[in-house]
């Protein structure tokens, strides 16, 4: 493995400006991703997972903006790129897959048109060559008779097929990194496994990095090598997947794992974390999780815990583990 990481996010802060004040949706997030490595970002809705993903592509929509930190990708600083240069990175070196394949394909253009357009936006090839590449990409995601399928519109495909097409589009330019934002949430369970398998296989065969954003710990534990758990805009635990799943350090991660149906004993009530995640205006001072934490102490209400190495071999942000 080369010593330079593919992606190095350090101290990333994304704020949304409102009339009175500005609220940080993501604060001080740092992580690294090696070439071909797969990272899962886990957390509840509103934890800042998707915002982190969009920030990497520099696509935060107003009134939000990146207010601090650096994002270095393949040795280039993405936050400093001009709009034109950034467009050459988007969809070319970094691709993104969204939650709902029904929504991400343009309903009035054929699948082929959309694929050819993507290729030609980044490579100076003829329409014919682009079409051949599109056929090739569809074959990779197991779409049968791809030549005929290219001429069809998104509504002529099933949900699972559409998501496979979205993945094919993401792969068209052989990116070094794919950001998948809840790629299986909108699909039914049998299809979910199929799509995750496909994504995993393609990442391995093409040696692509993957950032998998999801709230589904089960999916993450099967696919990724490392996990970052986010809570209220911060990473609260970061480490190797196997270690975190077997031996979580942070109380929040423990709560999440305990809440999984398969970890509860038969016939018992499922465990839950009391309360709900604070929204950005009501994050408590000190540790953001303090209000819901069973073991909360006075220090938790005063200082924000830093992300430090713990005995378990993971990084965690909690005062009580030192």
């Amino acid at each position, binding site marked *: 493995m080369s010593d330079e990481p593919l992606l190095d996010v350090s101290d990333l802060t994304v704020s949304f400006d409102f009339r009175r004040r500005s609220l940080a949706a993501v604060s001080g997030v740092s992580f690294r991703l090696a070439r071909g490595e797969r990272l899962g970002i886990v957390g509840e809705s509103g934890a800042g997972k998707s915002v982190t993903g969009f920030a990497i*592509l520099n*696509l935060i929509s107003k009134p939000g903006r990146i207010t601090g930190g650096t994002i270095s990708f393949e040795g280039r600083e993405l936050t400093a790129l001009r709009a034109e240069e950034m*467009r*050459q*990175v*988007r*969809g*070319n070196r970094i*691709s*993104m897959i*969204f939650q*709902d394949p029904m*929504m*991400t*394909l*343009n*309903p*009035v*253009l054929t699948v082929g048109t959309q694929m050819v*357009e*993507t290729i030609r*936006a*980044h490579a100076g090839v003829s329409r014919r060559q682009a079409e051949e590449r599109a056929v090739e990409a569809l074959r990779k995601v197991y779409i049968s008779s791809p030549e005929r399928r290219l001429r069809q519109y998104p509504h002529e495909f099933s949900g699972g097929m559409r998501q496979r097409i*979205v993945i094919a*589009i993401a792969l068209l330019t052989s990116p070094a990194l794919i950001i998948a934002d809840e790629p299986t949430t909108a699909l039914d369970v049998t299809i979910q496994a199929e799509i995750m398998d496909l994504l995993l296989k393609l990442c391995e065969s093409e040696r692509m990095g993957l950032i998998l954003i999801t709230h589904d710990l089960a999916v993450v534990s099967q696919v990724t090598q490392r996990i970052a758990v986010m809570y209220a805009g911060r990473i609260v635990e970061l480490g190797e997947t196997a270690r975190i799943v077997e031996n979580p350090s942070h109380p929040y991660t423990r709560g999440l794992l305990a809440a999984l149906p398969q970890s509860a004993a038969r016939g018992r009530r499922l465990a839950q974390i009391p309360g709900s995640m604070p929204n950005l205006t009501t994050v408590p001072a000190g540790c953001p999780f303090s209000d819901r934490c069973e073991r909360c102490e006075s220090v938790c209400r005063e200082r924000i815990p830093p992300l430090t190495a713990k005995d378990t071999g993971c990084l965690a942000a909690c005062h009580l583990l030192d």
Partner: protein
Amino acid sequence: MNALKRFKDCYFLYSFLRDPLAVGSLAVLVVLTVAAFAAPLIAPHNPYDPATIDIFDASTPPAWTPEGSEKFLLGTDAQGRDILSTMLYGMRVSLIIGFGATILQAFIGIIVGLSAGYFGRRLDALLMRLADVQLSFSTYMVAIFLGAVFQTAFGMANYETFAVPFLILVLGLAEWPQFARTVRASVMAEKKKEYVEAARVIGLGSRRIMWRHILPNTLTPVMVISTVQVANCIMGEAALSFIGLGMPITRPSLGSLIKAGFEFFLSGQWWITFFPGALLVLLIVAINLFGDWLRDFLNPKLYKG
């Protein structure tokens, strides 16, 4: 061949054929349009050629009345021109102006609406206020003002040659906000959808996203207003001609024919005004009925079931 078969099987055609009103109005529209553009071939006389006009034929009533002449089916006007022929030629002028002005309106309106909706903020505020200002002037006021300026500047002799493009320009400039507002509204709704986000993630530029991804998704309402606007523009042109600011009587449109005959209406020569008027009504009603059907078809909330 394949495309033809697909068209034959599609729901659009099926639903069209099941609505007699739609079929009827489109049939009328097609017949009238063909007749208008084939006027030089099918009209019995050429009203633009002074050599064929005889002043002694002036004010001949329609052929079925006692004083009527076999030569002129619907009679002649005060200069001796055959009414049927002038109507066919006149309808051609009306249709050209109606479609031309609508295309110009759509062209300006789509560009303005798309930019306003997509870029938003200041540009949006500026363009939409401009549209509001434009709409606060009535079409006729704009047309009368520009018409008066134009006619003084170039003189009546030149006016005749430029009348058609001039009227297209005036009507086009007067009502583009209709398109701009509609397009802006749908662009704002489409812009928030994920496929637009996905297109940005792919790395496409704003212009490409606007024209290739958003615009096709906003064309449904544009098609519906287009039909209404064609009818509106034809009426607008007729009204302008009626008050003497439209087509000159030497190259008459339906409106100027109505006006020309109106002077003689009370002295019993009803046919000069009546036939062009009836044709105008038929044309407008056919366009509007077809537009109504199109709107119902394209609006899934209004399915008749």
